[in-house]
């Protein structure tokens, strides 16, 4: 057996202190991804720090922000009355992910930290720059049907796998992180990274930091929001393409809009240019089509995933259309 030390702690402060003690240690919460990675030999931490008992499961409104603790389970968030009322897009995205059993144990922080599902990353006999920098990218020239069309690099074309994060980036979320010295805040859009020359890094969390909570500003998008997920089967499958949409429509005019896509990049992909185009325009099919077209600038297929160049704009139109139709 590859042995590891298992520690349990009940405060964020002590969790961070334990993390600092040993470079090769990892937090474990739901463990729905980490345990897979350990079983497959992709990662082998010396120390697992169980943070499930750290009291970070709160879901509440404070002023104009909805606060979600990093250890709230996916199910707890998706079924929370406040979330369903004020941030239905987040609930929809969460419920589109994984399976009920996984959502019951998976946490918000863990969901942000989950690693790509690229098959080459999981098979230690295959090349993968994300797992073993310098070994090459198996997916380029290989099986890349699930892979990225935006922001790719010659080192890695993996996609970020989360549904929740697509909603979070659309909702202008802020992430609160802590280290031994204190807290810092970063925008959710700056949390995950593109692969670039460092495909081994998925995000900008520093080695001495812990995710504490999310802060999501309340908005007027809840009525006309929608999460479209296109996948190979109706549940328990990663997105080929997913689209998170929130619209604020006054007299058929779009006064506010959020658009983000999943299954297309190494990070949640916000469609800022499409949003800017739609703002102030009529909520018509023609404008939706134009917004979808704008979103596809700089998209690039790798062979097996070329279909995404068509599926992605189609899905944007579908998501916008459904969001608009909600009464």
């Amino acid at each position, binding site marked *: 057996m590859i042995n590891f030390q298992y520690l349990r702690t009940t405060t964020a402060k002590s969790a961070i202190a334990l993390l600092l003690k040993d470079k090769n240690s990892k937090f474990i919460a739901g463990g729905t991804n980490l345990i897979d990675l350990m079983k497959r030999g992709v990662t082998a931490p010396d120390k697992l720090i169980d943070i499930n008992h750290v009291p970070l499961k709160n879901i509440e409104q404070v002023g104009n922000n909805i606060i979600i603790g990093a250890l709230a389970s996916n199910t707890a968030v998706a079924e929370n009355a406040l979330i369903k009322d004020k941030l239905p897009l987040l609930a929809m995205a969460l419920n589109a992910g994984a399976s009920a059993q996984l959502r019951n144990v998976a946490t918000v922080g863990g969901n942000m930290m989950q690693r790509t599902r690229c098959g*080459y990353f999981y098979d230690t006999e295959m090349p993968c720059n994300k797992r073993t920098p310098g070994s090459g990218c198996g997916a380029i020239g290989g099986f890349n049907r699930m892979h990225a069309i935006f922001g790719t690099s010659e080192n890695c074309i993996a996609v970020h796998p989360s549904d929740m994060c697509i909603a979070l980036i659309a909702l202008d979320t802020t992430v609160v992180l802590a280290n031994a010295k204190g807290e810092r805040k970063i925008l959710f859009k700056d949390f995950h990274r593109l692969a670039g020359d460092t495909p081994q890094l998925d995000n900008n969390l520093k080695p001495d930091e812990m995710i504490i909570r999310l802060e999501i500003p309340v908005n007027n998008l809840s009525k006309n929001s929608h999460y479209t997920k296109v996948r190979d089967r*109706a*549940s328990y499958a990663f997105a080929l393409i997913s689209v998170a949409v929130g619209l604020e429509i006054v007299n058929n005019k779009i006064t506010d809009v959020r658009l983000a896509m999943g299954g297309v990049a190494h990070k949640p992909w916000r469609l800022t240019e499409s949003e800017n185009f739609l703002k102030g325009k009529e909520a018509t099919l023609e404008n939706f089509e134009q917004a979808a077209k704008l979103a596809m600038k700089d998209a690039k297929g790798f062979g097996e995933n070329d279909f995404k160049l068509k599926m992605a704009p*189609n899905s944007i139109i*579908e998501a916008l259309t459904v969001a608009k139709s909600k009464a």
Partner: protein
Amino acid sequence: MRNQILKDENDRVDGIYKVTGKAKYFAEYELPGLTYGVLVTSTITKGKITSLDTKAAEKAPGVISVLSHLNKPSAPAYEQEGGPALKIFYTDKIFFNGQPIAIVVANTFERATYAASLVKATYAKESFNTDFEKAVSDASSKKLQGQPDYKRGVEDAYKTAEVSIEEEYHLPIETHNPMELHGIIADWRPNNQVTVYAKTQGVKATQGTIANVFKIPIENIQVNSEFVGGGFGMALRTWPLEIATVMASKHISKPVKVVITRMQMFTMVGNRPAAVQTIGLGAKKDGTLTGITHRAFGETSVYENFTEGVVNMAKFMYQCDNVNTQYSVVPVDLGVPIWMRGPGEATGAFALESAIDEMAHALDMDPLVFRTKNDPEKDQQRNKPFSDKNIKEAYRVGAQKIGWSERKNKHGSLVDGQWKMGYGVSIGVFNANRGRASVKGILKADGSLVLQSATSDIGPGTGTGMTLIASKLLGIPVDRIKFELGDSSLPPAPSQGGSATLSTVGSAVNDVCVSLKSTVAELAANANMDATSNFVDVLKKNNLPSIEVTKQSQAGKEREEFSMYSFSIHFVKVKVHSLTGVVKVDKIVSVGDSGTIVSPKTARSQMVGGAVGGVGMALTEESIIDHRYGRYINNNFADYHVPVNADIPEIEVHFINKPDPHINPMGAKGMGEIALIGFSAAVANAVFNATGKRIRTLPITPDKILA
């Protein structure tokens, strides 16, 4: 089943056991001193092992032994010419990626797993090909093995027909993926006595294979397999990994358990072979079929050939004077395939039944009308009448239940927002087999009956069916009957495959019950009792605690006189999203025409399971290989998409339920295969009806709809 709880014919004899966890599967047996084996597998696809370093593994905590070709554990059959094609631990040759090259045995599973990761092999690599489609296109000039060509009338008559089509159909590798992982517990004791707890579709077959490989008397080997957590064909042979486990147990004189990983399920226990097929159809303008050509290539391995009945259906399913078929297998550097539910017939039916739909479209005919018009009166291939066939009635029932009258012949006619709706139909057919089996019956004075046979139940409900046959014949309540199976010491029966168990073993149960009945009548007469006396009274009067009889039963001349098949008609309604390409099956109606329905609940479950498997075959299942490395990419349940509940709509099952007057005493025919055969074509045909897109490559994933 022992101590079964079965209150009426709507219950399964093992239902309570399965849902309460009392059913014991092979891996759950605890033997004293049990050890754990983990297989080390090749990481190259073709070549030779040049060195194998097992030292670190041997020194790892808890490790008892490491076996490989270096120590060649004793298996006499492997020393001889011929014998098994893949001689595990007797060769340094690598035939496929993931081939077992060593087994590490330790005192815990975790320690064996870790130690297995320490075994280091070096290889001399050779070039290889795992791409079946490429192999087929490269193979045209080579001499291929397969099955004899078939020809009736004019060859390729479709080419000169008034209306003709010629199309190519592609199926990927599918992996059986039953819930239960494969493996075995082997306990080799002194004096060459061997007990195994196996996951097998045939306890006698497993027993025979072990006897043959190790050259020990068959009666030395006891095989137990009372419950099997799904097989779908993959447990129809004793795989090299099982032989490896027996070898290890013999070598260390301790019981050894091996349960392979889900990833190893993709490489070690077979798959539905990929196939490339061409169908040519010719017809008169009035819809009379005048030519059928079916040419198929199936995937096989380089070290062992595997063939199946891909082109069977074309020979008899439709009235047509000119039919020719050809079937060859093309080797690739992968593990040898094996039958997967419906087997080759399901592969063939996708092509043929898609092509029939394409021809109906070319003729601008309703595909049901076209099929009915060409429904054969007799089997033209064998020149015999069908023993029983009610296809037209099945068409009527299914069409009414699915709402076929709503269907428009012009595709794309039914639209609801972005969704396009369509209807599809397909036939499934499979040989109604009947083999030879023995059953022992013990009728007891306490009013109970025990029946025994070395058959299996991989899920269809064997024990339930047999119990119901006996209950009906002897008038004994179902809760007083036990049917024992999955034990090689019981009277012999064939493996459970090819939809033959009910017909084969059920006939022997019938014969045993008839015999017991006449024995009771004789005993009654001897004791001057009324001929209608209850057997309990008769046995008591005769001072007999029990009477027993063993009967062997098999088919007679009727199989020479009649052509015997089971049939199914699958109707599906689909909706296809025009923007995202997502296909949703909206409703399923499957109609079975397989003689008498002995056990309504388990028969329905068979059809439901077949439909679910059919949805997987049609829409989601595909084993993907990176041909640069020869390794599977999606070898897990997250990425290999078996349908989930959310993919499955309402399934209606109907049966014609008329006895086949010739097949066997019950008039009942098998139905495990027909539940799946043809289903994928019904979906593809419905997708065409909805969208006008003809998808000839499975599975029908959203990208193919958008292409």
